[in-house]
């Protein structure tokens, strides 16, 4: 390329850019719309980037919250050989264990005569206003300069004596405040609880966590540490602890987080060979990110497309005149592309600016929702520049198709004032079908359960399918226009107009289609997974029932205490003491097996009632067994037999007499010692669920015959157990001497996340659909101005314009949704297979979210049409002469 052509090309761009700038200024409303479409995603993504980077605490940023003002924090291990990465949180490795940890003297051989401050992290229960809750404890002398920054005081002072404590807001909110007494409960080695009373002398923030409970005391406040506690961490003062110091300490079995190493890490080669590299999974994450970016880019380009198409069309006459006076197609193309350049540059920069401004508001909100403290406010400039580049690219891409169309336009037709766009290409639907075929094939390949790259394959295929769909849109729109002949005027006009102006209609419909496809795909995935979870759910008790399992060594007094709490807290819920076999002895546990001859009868159950075998003279009602099994079961129990619970997936009993074998399993390990067995009449009681609460019910005679120890192992609580009351009862039960909990079977609870995801999907789908439809509709309305004037002249009512607007929105929304929904099924069905694959039955499950589907495919287009109809101006332009 010679210098001359380069400069002339640049010169051509200069003219094109000037034209684009003027045009942008001249059509301010249209430009504002284009900017908005490019700006919004850039703004959202750059704000999210800033919030993410601010919330993300890097190794260097975490130094203060980990080691206060110290140069390093040492964690001696019970070994003499550790290896670590620069930040030990990123990876460590141990040699032989069970060795004495490094002593202070040994550490000083490496570090010399530096100040060392011991720090311990521990936990304990404390008395709240209502009962008992847990708190984390920081055991250190916070007055020491080395500890500065570990705990920030808002009020009061740090402890000066062992009977003082500082707490964070999370503790203060639920218990004693400044000046009050905090009662910690520590479990002594013999299991009894020892209260420790401490005076709260300060309230502040623990540097690492905002919402979890933390309290800080001086060493010795909890008594002397035991051997089990291990050595404390040590904060190291003095000058920097170098990487060679760290390696020397590693050789002593000490893990080191050094301020100098974290803030200024040595080259990777300084690491031990087996500590190098290793961040696997990054490739996959990058590919996923790539897919997401591609999808978002596609959506933004499609949404902005119509505006650029209309801008190009507005310039069509100028371009035709230029062509008529000798302009080349390349010049025409450049003129339209320049619009993309101008809007992309301004939109990218503006979006990033607004995004950063917005993130200053978003960061405090996000902090309130996060348990951990964020790092300092941080704008990742390189990333943000990438986002701006993304905005620029999307504007440029949105202008590409109109630009090529402009360079190929029929000059004569344009100059003659014909407004249509000619017939759609016959090749594009073939390309579309081929792409969709590829998408289906890729999805099928990716749907095989267990394939590692399946999600990527399905994701990639989804994008290919969506692109294929875009190629189908023109023919579909043309077909809809043909079918519209019989429709009422506004719909007919809208359908035909949409087909005549494909350049602006197709991207809008494709944007709606892509949105719907995404919503449907994710909806199917989420719903299928939830259905699979529900199918795989095994209730522990019949729905609505509850049980308090009692400890093996519960005294009669404790049982009474628990029953009293239940009686007072849940006066309307019937209670029953559950008598069962005590399975655990002092040094062994019982093993009770069922057999018929050589054939073992397998049982699976939860053991939720404090035992695996109940002892009762009739079948208890709280087991949820089928009523038609009761008569036979009660008869067998009366005969001194055994009733075996059979859940949905278990076979019937092989005979009506079974051998019950009792053995002992020593805790220390070793063989099962067989003790006794008995041949007993047996019956089955079926549980219509996937699981049963216990294995079997023994008659008291059978238990006596087999010399099985029995006790009250649980208290069963029948419905109804109200949620609020349950919380109070459980706080009281936790504070009782037995320290037990009432567990209630509520059945399968769909994760709140599933519901939230579906709502978010529907809302996001709605916003994108509304955005795409609104843009296309109002661009169409402004294009159709002469037609409305004509309609006015022949006596159209003002509401005709509203009708046409709503019809246009309906055509765009409905055609997009109907095209997008089947496309969404491709990846949706594909991804649901690995998501719902059941290893046991090797089956998969497909659940279609019909309400979501109906809402997105039918509801949203109608709603959008209604909104557009109401928002459209009804006044018709009254133009008498339109020449």
């Amino acid at each position, binding site marked *: 390329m010679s210098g001359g052509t380069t400069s002339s090309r640049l010169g051509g761009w200069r003219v094109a850019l000037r034209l684009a700038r003027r045009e942008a200024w001249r059509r301010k409303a249209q430009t504002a719309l284009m900017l908005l479409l490019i700006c919004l995603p850039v703004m959202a993504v750059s704000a999210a980037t800033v919030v993410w980077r601010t919330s993300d605490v890097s190794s260097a940023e975490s130094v203060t919250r980990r080691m206060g003002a110290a140069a390093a924090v040492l964690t001696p291990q019970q070994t003499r050989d550790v290896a670590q990465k620069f930040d030990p949180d990123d990876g460590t490795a141990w040699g032989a264990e069970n060795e004495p940890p490094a002593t202070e003297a040994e550490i000083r051989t490496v570090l010399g005569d530096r100040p060392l401050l011991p720090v311990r992290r521990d936990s304990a229960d404390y008395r709240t206003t209502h009962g008992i809750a847990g708190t984390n404890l920081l055991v250190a002398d916070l007055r020491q300069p080395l500890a500065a920054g570990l705990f920030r005081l808002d009020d009061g002072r740090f402890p000066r004596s062992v009977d003082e404590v500082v707490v964070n807001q999370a503790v203060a909110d639920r218990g004693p405040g400044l000046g009050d007494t905090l009662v910690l409960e520590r479990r002594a080695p013999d299991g009894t609880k020892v209260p420790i009373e401490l005076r709260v002398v300060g309230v502040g923030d623990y540097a690492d966590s905002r919402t979890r409970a933390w309290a800080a005391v001086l060493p010795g406040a909890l008594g002397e540490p035991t051997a089990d506690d291990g050595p404390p961490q040590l904060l190291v003062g003095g000058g920097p602890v170098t990487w060679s110091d760290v390696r020397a300490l590693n050789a002593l079995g000490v893990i080191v987080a050094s301020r100098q190493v974290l803030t200024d890490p040595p080259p990777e080669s300084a690491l031990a060979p087996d500590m190098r590299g290793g961040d696997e999974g990054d490739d996959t994450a990058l590919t996923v990110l790539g897919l997401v970016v591609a999808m978002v880019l596609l959506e933004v380009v499609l949404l902005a497309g119509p505006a650029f198409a209309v801008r190009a069309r507005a310039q069509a006459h100028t371009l035709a005149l230029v062509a008529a006076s000798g302009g080349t197609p390349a010049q025409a193309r450049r003129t339209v592309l320049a619009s993309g350049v101008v809007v992309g540059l301004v939109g990218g920069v503006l979006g990033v600016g607004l995004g950063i401004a917005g993130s200053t508001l978003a960061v405090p909100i996000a902090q309130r929702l996060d348990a951990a403290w964020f790092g300092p406010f941080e704008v990742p400039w390189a990333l943000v520049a990438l986002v701006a580049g993304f905005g620029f690219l999307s504007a440029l891409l949105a202008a590409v198709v109109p630009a090529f169309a402009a360079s190929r336009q029929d000059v004569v037709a344009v100059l003659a004032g014909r407004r249509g766009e000619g017939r759609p290409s016959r090749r594009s639907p073939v390309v579309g079908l081929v792409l969709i075929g590829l998408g289906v094939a890729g999805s099928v390949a990716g749907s095989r359960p267990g394939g590692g790259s399946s999600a990527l394959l399905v994701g990639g295929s989804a994008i290919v399918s969506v692109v294929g769909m875009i190629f189908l849109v023109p023919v579909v729109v043309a077909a809809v226009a043909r079918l519209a002949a019989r429709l009422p005027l506004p719909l007919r006009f809208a359908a035909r107009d949409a087909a005549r102006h494909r350049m602006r209609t197709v991207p809008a419909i494709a944007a709606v289609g892509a949105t719907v496809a995404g919503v449907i795909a994710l909806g199917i995935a989420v719903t299928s997974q939830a259905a699979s979870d529900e199918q795989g759910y095994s209730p522990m008790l019949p729905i609505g029932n509850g049980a308090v399992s009692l400890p093996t060594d519960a005294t009669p007094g404790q049982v009474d205490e628990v029953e009293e709490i239940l009686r007072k807290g849940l006066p309307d819920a019937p209670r029953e003491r559950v008598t069962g076999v005590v399975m655990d002895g002092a040094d062994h546990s019982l093993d009770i097996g069922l057999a018929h001859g050589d054939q073992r009868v397998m049982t699976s159950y939860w053991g939720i009632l404090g035992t695996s075998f109940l002892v009762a003279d009739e079948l208890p009602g709280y087991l949820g067994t089928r009523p038609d099994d009761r008569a036979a079961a009660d008869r067998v129990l009366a005969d001194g037999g055994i009733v075996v619970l059979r859940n949905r997936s278990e076979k019937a009993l092989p005979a009506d007499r079974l051998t019950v074998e009792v053995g002992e399993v020593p805790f220390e390990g070793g063989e099962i010692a067989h003790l006794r067995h008995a041949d007993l009449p047996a019956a089955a009681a079926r549980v219509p669920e996937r699981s049963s609460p216990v294995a079997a019910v023994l008659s008291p005679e059978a238990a006596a015959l087999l010399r099985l120890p029995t006790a009250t192992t649980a208290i069963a609580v029948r419905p109804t157990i109200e949620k609020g009351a349950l919380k109070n009862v459980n706080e009281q039960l936790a504070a009782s001497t037995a320290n037990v909990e009432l567990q209630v079977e509520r059945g399968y609870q769909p994760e709140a996340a599933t519901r939230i995801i579906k709502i978010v999907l529907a809302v996001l789908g709605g916003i994108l659909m509304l955005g795409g439809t609104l843009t296309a509709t109002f661009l169409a309305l402004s294009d159709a101005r002469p*037609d409305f004037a004509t*309609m006015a*002249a022949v*006596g*159209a*009512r003002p509401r005709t314009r509203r009708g046409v607007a709503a019809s246009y929105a309906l055509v765009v929304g409905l055609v997009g949704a109907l095209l997008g929904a089947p496309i969404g099924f491709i990846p949706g069905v594909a991804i649901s297979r690995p998501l719902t694959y059941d290893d046991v039955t090797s089956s998969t499950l497909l659940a279609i979210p019909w309400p979501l589907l109906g809402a997105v495919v039918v509801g949203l287009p109608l709603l959008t049409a209604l909104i557009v109809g109401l928002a459209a101006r009804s006044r018709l332009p009254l133009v*008498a002469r339109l*020449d």
Partner: protein
Amino acid sequence: MTAVLQLTDVVRVHGEAPHEVQALRGVSFAAYAGELVAVMGPSGSGKSTLLTIAGGLDQPTSGAVTVEGVDLARLGQPERARMRRTSIGYVFQGFNLIPALTAAENVALPRELDGVAPRQARAEARQALEEVGIPHLADRFPDDMSGGQQQRVAIARAVVAERRLILADEPTGALDTETGEEILRLLRARCDAGAAGVLVTHEARHAAWADRVVFLRDGVVVDETGADRAETLTEPAAR
């Protein structure tokens, strides 16, 4: 005999003092059934304003406009729209067909807008297209027709369902001479069949088709003449 269109002392002022422009300053004239009235005058004389006011697209500042005895000034916007659907037909210079609709659908537009069942509206449209001589073009889109064919469709739209007043604003302006003459012949025939026509034109030879010529200058009627005296307004070369 009552006039189909009657303008009495119509004044139309655009803008406000001191920048006001008086488009019409007290124009009175009538068009009777079976009569084609040509309105002539130079650019800016108020011809088009007269037509928009006659069609109820614009309101006079003062004066009265009655169409088939109904005072347009007393009607609201919806009723005036209804008048355009049922009584008044417009023909423009730029044809003003809706490109998204076929010829038949364009003609049926006022009927459909009036709530007539599509099937009947379509049938009436076909009949109107037959009257203007292009029944075979019913299913064509405007972009696929010549200018003359488009203007015929526009006339069919103006006359569909027996509308009594046809307002034509330079209907031949975008056509060649021969095609223009055919369009005027159609208008003339329509008036002979009983409609009242108002033809705005600046070409004197077109006035020869009219029964009367109203001459406007600066918003006032400067001359009104019967067809028998039309020659006096027509340059001899044009005939």
